[in-house]
């Protein structure tokens, strides 16, 4: 089978889109179901990326361990650290209203960015740090390997989300999003549920960040700017934040269309790629968000249809 049509550029674009879909799925659980608007996505993404980097680079791994074991341990560290950070943030914001959550989570992302810049001894500061690829399938083989892993992760996340929608846990998340005091009065430990929700979502975003680090071979503060959060948020809202497939449809319509179709297949002047296109991308995403909120505030797919779901479950 010839894979020549898969240019390095296309592989990387697919990888980015897949990562964005993955993060949008985790955001979907927090925002679409439980009603917690997490604007700190890039914070968790970045924390995972940097935790992986710091572990793989700053720990003197003995040669006898080979390449794979340090890689696995550092990945696990990224997942654990971001899960703990998620619980901490979840605890801080658990009693705040929507505005408070927005500011708190945005603040967290800023803290991560500032730490990445300032703690040069660990993070390499503005220059960043290089990380090596632990697998050896050649340049293109490696990229395909990480793309495959990311796609697997996205499929798993989507499957998990779809199952959550038809599980008692999902019903409880919706209840918390709709009326938390009422859920509490029905004996539901809403605080603990929100903490675990944040732990899971953050761990997922952190893992995606760590895989980005390996794919990029390089970790820099410019990778963890606000545009990561924007792409996830705009994609999810455009697709429909309350639906299982909202993240997939929305991100394909935004990042998918722009990063793949426009950037790769449209004959654009080469000089545009460095500065013009990223700016145009933000503008188009912003405009799309406004249009969606004006004409279809619940996204392309619309609101959740629990009446249909429950009727199907009830009739067996």
């Amino acid at each position, binding site marked *: 089978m010839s894979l020549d049509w898969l240019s390095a550029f296309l592989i990387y674009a697919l990888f980015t889109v897949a990562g964005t879909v993955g993060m949008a799925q985790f955001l979907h659980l927090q925002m679409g179901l439980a009603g917690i608007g997490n604007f700190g996505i890039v914070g968790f993404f970045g924390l995972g990326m940097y935790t992986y980097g710091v572990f793989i680079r700053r720990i003197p791994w003995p040669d006898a361990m080979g390449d794979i074991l340090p890689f696995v341990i550092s990945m696990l560290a990224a997942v654990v650290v971001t899960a703990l950070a998620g619980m901490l943030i979840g605890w801080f914001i658990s009693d705040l209203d929507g505005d408070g959550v927005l500011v708190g989570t945005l603040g967290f992302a800023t803290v991560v960015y500032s730490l990445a810049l300032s703690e040069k001894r660990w993070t390499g500061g503005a220059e960043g740090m290089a990380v090596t690829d632990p697998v050896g399938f050649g340049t293109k083989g490696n990229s395909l390997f990480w793309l495959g892993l990311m796609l697997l992760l996205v499929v798993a996340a989507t499957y998990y989300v779809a199952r959550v929608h038809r599980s008692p846990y999902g019903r409880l998340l919706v209840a918390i999003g709709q009326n938390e*005091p009422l859920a509490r009065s029905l004996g539901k430990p809403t605080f603990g549920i929100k903490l675990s929700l944040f732990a899971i979502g953050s761990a997922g975003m952190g893992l995606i960040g760590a895989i980005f680090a390996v794919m990029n071979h390089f970790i820099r503060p410019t990778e963890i700017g606000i545009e990561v959060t924007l792409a996830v948020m705009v994609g999810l809202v455009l697709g429909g934040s309350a639906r299982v497939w909202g993240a997939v449809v929305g991100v394909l319509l935004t990042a998918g269309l722009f990063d793949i179709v426009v950037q790769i297949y449209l004959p654009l002047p080469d000089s545009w790629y460095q500065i013009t296109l990223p700016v145009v991308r933000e503008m188009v995403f912003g405009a799309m968000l406004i249009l969606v909120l004006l004409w279809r505030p619940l996204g392309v797919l619309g609101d959740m249809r629990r009446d249909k779901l429950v009727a199907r479950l009830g009739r067996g």
Partner: protein
Amino acid sequence: MKSFDGRVVVDVDDLILGSNPVEGLIGPNGAGKTTLMRMIMHSVRLDQGTVTFHPGGGSSSVVISSLPAHAMASLGVVKTNQVIQDFEKLTIWDSLLLAAARGRDERPFRIFAEKRVWAQNTAEIKRYLDEFPFASPYGFAKSAGEKKLLDILRCLLLRPKILLLDEPTAGLPADVRDRVMALVRQKAVDEYVSVVIVEHDLNVIWALSDYVHFMAEGSVVLQGDPAWIREHETVVEKYLGKGHVGR
């Protein structure tokens, strides 16, 4: 005791609720009935004093005023809401299953627990839905009456040991109200649920309760059986008025 901005709203020395199957709690507006209920349910903090729950049946008593709000339901201390409360995006079946489902089926990785929750609770929920038909049980509660009824059914599905009903009849159509009250009476007598009703529709109180607490200006002024309370001078003067239809 509870005060807001220095103004004492509820000041009860020593009150025992739930010694009889059905008890009524009545009093004029502003007497502190709802605040007292909220103090018991821990949705407002106590300034002084404690609330203790005696489950009976050999279990030891629990000081519930130091427990988190969500721990009350699993002890069997349950209250219906005076103001209509609902989950807008959950259907009627969802709402009832949510109330009935147990905590260990609602953990993040229990993604295959739905079938079990349905299997365990369908019979009980169907019984309630047969007795109180909703316009579309797989859909959403639309009218205020449906939402109020749903609130009460959710509380019954929690299998309460003590059930506080805060103005349960407000918004219910008369025939539904009578059936709800008959069901509540039956739960109290057959299943030993201690029921406390706060209600302005005094016909419900006189017809249903075995014992009545009368509150005025933040304290419980009188306690006794309904017939006696109904004729008592203080109650007549402070609440009912001489020509009240409820007498």
